């Protein structure tokens, strides 16, 4: 009331929702907040479990390479192998997924596209245990010659170098198998953004005499860039958390090495799955601390992914 007498306050806009509106809104905001509450509860539970271990080992928990019966514990190598396996699977899955999505949206006939889409979605629905068993029994013996060839011909590159002759149970093989598991999600996001390519620009390019490939290069891929990056991050998130494939395939190690074709790797999820059954005392806390680390890393990767996708021109409105 102290302002100038002529000033007009904006009115508070009110509306009277119907009872149906109110109930519906209640249900929706209830379920929305439930997911936040669950997420927070999981985070808090892991944090409280992890604290005793984090007090005991401090930052060296993240940087040292050791895991003994009753501590000290360090997941440096485990984190390293987790990221390495995830990056290997992303390196393989990304080009395959993009090609597949381009084939479905740009080249295949409507019927072939529908069949391919259903097959890829089915692949996404298979339990990871199936991939793991198939990878272990069928794929591994067939991948070992590939590893041998790579180390023979490209062994001068440190990552393809191998000490000894054991090519089984390597980060490479685990990465190949988990690439099959993250391929469906990346493909379906890429397919979604490619199919939204602005028709006007596609036609403009064709009308200038562009070939199908130059249309893809000029319109489809630039438009879909955000979706591709976001889908890749989402795939990375999945690969980081992949458990059973790593448990079945790799032989666990707590040492770092650049040699991805050589036997021995690890992952946070596999570490927890393998050790939680017989762990007691501080070891349980150490595993919870490892779980908390994985929780935070995947949360971060997924948040970055959705931010990139929803901010890109193509990704607005794409469901992740």
């Amino acid at each position, binding site marked *: 009331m102290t302002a100038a007498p002529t000033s007009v306050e904006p009115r508070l806009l009110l509306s009277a929702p119907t009872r149906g509106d109110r109930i519906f809104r209640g249900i929706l905001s209830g379920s929305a907040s439930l997911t936040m509450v669950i997420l927070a509860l999981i985070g808090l539970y892991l944090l409280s479990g992890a604290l005793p271990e984090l007090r005991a080992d401090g930052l060296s928990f993240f940087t040292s390479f050791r895991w003994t019966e009753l501590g000290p514990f360090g997941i440096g190598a485990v984190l390293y192998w987790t990221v390495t396996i995830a990056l290997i699977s992303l390196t393989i899955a990304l080009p395959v997924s993009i090609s597949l999505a381009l084939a479905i949206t740009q080249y295949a*006939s*409507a019927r072939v596209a529908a069949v391919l889409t259903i097959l890829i979605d089915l692949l996404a629905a298979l339990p990871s245990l199936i991939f793991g068993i198939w990878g272990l029994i069928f794929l591994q013996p067939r991948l070992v010659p590939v590893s041998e060839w790579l180390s023979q011909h490209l062994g001068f590159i440190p990552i393809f170098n191998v000490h000894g002759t054991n090519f089984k149970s390597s980060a490479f093989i685990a990465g190949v198998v988990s690439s099959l598991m993250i391929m469906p999600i990346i493909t379906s996001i890429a397919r979604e953004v490619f199919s939204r390519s*602005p028709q*006007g*620009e596609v*036609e*403009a*390019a*064709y*009308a*200038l*005499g*562009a*070939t199908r490939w*130059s249309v893809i290069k*000029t*319109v489809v891929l*630039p438009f879909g860039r955000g979706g591709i990056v976001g889908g890749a991050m989402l795939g990375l998130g999945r690969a980081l958390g992949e458990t059973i494939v790593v448990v079945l395939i790799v032989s666990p190690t707590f040492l770092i090495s650049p040699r991805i074709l050589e036997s021995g790797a690890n992952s946070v999820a596999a570490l927890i799955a393998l050790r939680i059954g017989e762990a007691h005392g501080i070891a349980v806390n150490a595993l919870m601390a490892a779980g908390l680390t994985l929780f935070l890393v995947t949360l971060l990767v997924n948040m970055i992914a959705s931010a990139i996708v929803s901010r890109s021109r193509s990704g607005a409105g794409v469901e992740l």
Partner: protein
Amino acid sequence: MTLADATVTLSTDAAEGHTLSASGVHAWFGSHLVLEDINLVAEANTVTALIGPSGCGKSTFIRILNRTHELVPGAQMAGEVILNDEDIYGPSSRPTVVRRHIGMVFQKPNPFPAMTIAQNVLAGPKLNKIKVTDPDELVEVSLTRAGLWREVKDRLDKPGGSLSGGQQQRLCIARSLAVHPDVLLMDEPCSALDPTSTRRIEETIGELRDLITIVIVTHNMQQAERVADHVAFFLAEENEPGRIVEQGSTAKIFEDADDPRTSDYVHGVFG
């Protein structure tokens, strides 16, 4: 300069015009016949207007003229379209080369939003991997012909999407002209524009007539009367495919049509 030719001449020689003639053109979407027996000749260096109510197949027909019709799944056609004594649907012709010789401007302006104004103009040569000896000159000539040069010459590095709707449409015309087509097809180029922009485009069409052959689809009778030399009236009776009811010089169609449906349509009795 054949339609199978992978190179394109970037000459500015306008001495010899190019006649585009369609004969016995039919079109289907799936098994549904939408156009029946269309015969039309767009004489060199003239403007031919296609008029008629919505859904009579004008757009389908104009898309047949540069082989963009076949990009629609299930679309089929019959008949011949002859440019420079060659059937553009002949066994030795390539759709990409055909489309470079017969350019197209669409209803909705569609510049490439991520490219600058200059890059938009040069998009055609780039998409076709044609080396341009003097890009700056090509940009200036094309934009001048499209009547846009004076307005944008100081901001060629700004995105194409930053222009107004009418300017975007003239940018699209400049982009089509930059590959030096023989024929320019325009599918309702002004229907999304305000009257001032529409007048600018019509002026542009008038100036381009000396350089190339133009075929334009329009719903605006005054526009057809203002810009066209030759007018073809398309009509699709209920449950029938589209046909040309009547065609002739602009004066004939607007003042002395033979068919009563034509004179009713051009004078706004229906449509």
